[in-house]
């Protein structure tokens, strides 16, 4: 995938403009000049024209929870391959988690990632570790990390088990204004668990991860956020209990936000019956009652963001018995199509709701300026076609890994790519006239 330089003055014609902030969802056109939106619904005779055939143009999507694996695990993903996958999935930016090797616990690594990402139009926002080497023992130098460009802190994949240290993390991070992103998991309760603990795990004989593992840490950390006033963002909420804790916190006005992943909205522990290791991730696929609760929560606005937890793994760590397989699934290239087809087309949420959950919702959590379809706004736009039919085929993906349970799903609504500044990057090659 090669990024393409846009003409200086480009009219995006025949588009569907969707912008939650302005509450618009209408056909129209968009004029962009030298990387800035200059007019809506206009005819500019001297502009190059790209007829988008009814594609949606909306504020650029941010996947605030991805694993780019570099440095350390380049056989699973690199910053560049992750950026390409993001572009193909319609994301203008991603926030990458610090469970690399070495971990993102030093300003130098944060700067290196940002620089490494500059050669491609997808912005990468590093999330630095909460504790040094994600070991849960000592806080990282959060102020310096934040100055270097880290937008949030997380020990994702791990959880700060020491409650006192988590309290200090929420307190100290206030110096930066950046949120602590919480992978809420009690590892003692998880034990050797490899799937959700339920009737299905009992039948399959797989060791279970109880809801409690997520619920107890979520409740603990919400209490800590309340006590300290530190910003807490709950990653990949997967249980009805964690959702309740999140909504209760929101109701009480606490500095707490949450995200949900497409796979937890669409799949349950039943999917594990095949022993397919692409259904193995943390938190695990829960039960139908959790899935339905998450959908209701999404409808009520409980979540600030949909985030994929894109977790690439090479073939060798997934083509093994379920218990031995790595946790994690890829998500960048399926998220948009899944949410559009299964929740927007079915009118569970509106197009504008989806756009907010993918764009300005996560931007707000990360403290980034919002993007809107208004004149004067720098170009950071997602383009997808709402009616394009496709079949998920991981072999065609830009990510280096193939671990998705959605292979073979027939979807309507497909990402084309993104516009960022004066560049285009995506699956589709634009036809300028």
């Amino acid at each position, binding site marked *: 995938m090669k990024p393409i330089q846009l003409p200086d003055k480009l009219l995006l014609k025949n588009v569907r403009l969707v912008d939650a902030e302005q509450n618009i969802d209408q056909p129209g056109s968009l004029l962009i000049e030298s990387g800035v939106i200059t007019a809506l619904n206009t005819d500019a005779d001297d502009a190059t024209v790209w007829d988008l055939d009814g594609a949606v143009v909306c504020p650029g999507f941010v996947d605030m929870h991805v694993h780019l694996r570099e440095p350390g695990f380049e056989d699973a993903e690199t910053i560049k391959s992750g950026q390409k996958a993001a572009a193909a999935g319609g994301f203008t930016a991603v926030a990458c988690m610090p469970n690399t090797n070495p971990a993102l616990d030093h300003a130098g690594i944060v700067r290196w990632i940002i620089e490494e990402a500059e050669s491609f139009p997808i912005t990468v926002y590093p999330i630095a570790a909460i504790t040094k080497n994600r070991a849960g023992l000592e806080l990282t130098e959060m102020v310096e990390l934040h100055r270097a460009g880290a937008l949030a802190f997380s020990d994702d994949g791990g959880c700060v088990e020491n409650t006192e240290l988590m309290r200090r993390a929420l307190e100290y991070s206030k110096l930066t204004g950046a949120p602590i992103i919480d992978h809420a998991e009690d590892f003692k309760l998880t034990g050797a668990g490899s799937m959700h603990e339920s009737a299905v795990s009992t039948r399959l004989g797989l060791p279970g991860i109880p809801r409690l593992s997520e619920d107890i840490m979520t409740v603990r950390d919400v209490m800590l956020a309340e006590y300290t006033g530190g910003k807490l963002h709950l990653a990949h909420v997967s249980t009805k209990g964690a959702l309740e804790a999140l909504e209760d916190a929101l109701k009480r006005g606490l500095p707490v936000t949450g995200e949900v992943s497409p796979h937890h909205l669409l799949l349950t522990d039943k999917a594990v019956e095949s022993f397919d290791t692409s259904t193995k991730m943390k938190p695990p696929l829960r039960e139908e009652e959790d899935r339905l609760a998450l959908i209701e929560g999404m409808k009520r606005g409980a979540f600030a963001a949909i985030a994929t937890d894109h977790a690439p793994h090479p073939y*060798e760590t997934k083509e093994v018995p379920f218990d031995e397989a790595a946790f994690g699934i890829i998500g960048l290239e399926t998220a948009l199509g899944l949410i559009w087809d299964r929740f927007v087309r079915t009118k569970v949420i509106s197009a504008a709701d989806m756009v907010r959950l993918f764009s300005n919702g996560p931007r707000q959590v990360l403290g980034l300026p919002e993007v809107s379809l208004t004149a004067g706004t720098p170009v950071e736009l997602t383009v997808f076609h709402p009616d394009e039919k496709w079949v998920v085929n991981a072999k065609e993906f830009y990510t280096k890994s193939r671990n998705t349970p959605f292979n073979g799903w027939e979807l309507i609504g497909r990402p084309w790519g993104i516009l960022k500044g004066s560049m285009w990057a995506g699956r589709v090659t634009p036809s300028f006239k």
Partner: protein
Amino acid sequence: MSQDNGKSPALSSRHLLGLEGVPADEITLILDTAEAMKEILDRPIKKVPTLRGVTVVNLFFEDSTRTKLSFELAEKRLSADLINFSKSGSSVAKGETLLDTARNIEAMKVDVVVVRHQHPGVPKFLADRLTSVVVNAGDGSHEHPTQALLDMMTLRQTFGHFKGLRVAIVGDITHSRVVKSNIHGLITMGAEVMLVGPPTLMPRDVESLNVKVSHDIDEAIAWADALNVLRLQLERQKSGFLPSLREYHMTFGVTLERLAKAPKELVILHPGPMNRGVEIESAVADSGASVILEQVTNGVAVRMAVLMLLSAPEGIL
């Protein structure tokens, strides 16, 4: 035996991965076939040529004595060629992956893979990827279908039927593959199953398998026609599931004293190996109520039946 023109297989699945989903008529067919095989075991020359030319590999990734011996014997009685592969542990870290091991063995042109593995789902993993017939000889805490079949064969010999038969299974339900296969098989055949054990060793939502659950061994003894006593892994104490083996024996141990209170004499099964003095008192294991050694004999017959039904060359059945 059900077959059309000698072509369609006797069982609806090519493999035996578990008893979940195996229909009643096929379980009956396996048990009937096993009875015929048992007759062979009583002959002076205990061998038939049924699987001549069929190659079986016993792929044991986990220690096993009796299951492995039982399969080997079954294969020999049927004149199959057999090779053995044993390897404890597994995994990427130790070099060759499971899939590579299996593909290499298959490249040697085997027809049947009998697999024992510490992880659930490995037999299915192999069945999905190899062309051989796969027989599950125990996968983690998932299933152990031939063990359940031999338990059922033993029960049928004693009681003559399954309908309404009450079987209580006692012990570590969570970590037992034997339990799950027994539940599927017995429920399919119309028996009633009660699981008995401490709450720490009772898996989540196990009632969903249409079984009763009890934490009272005396209640189970009063209710049951037969008691299947599971081996209690000694490491369960160390990992915190139990305070002590002593207390386990006090609370769940099957003793003559407890059995004496039952309204009728119970039949006692045990999949072995036994921890005498822990889950079962020696006096019980060696009593007339115990059918433990019949189980072992039946094990060979059941495995012969399974191998024959799954892999006999066309026209033999």
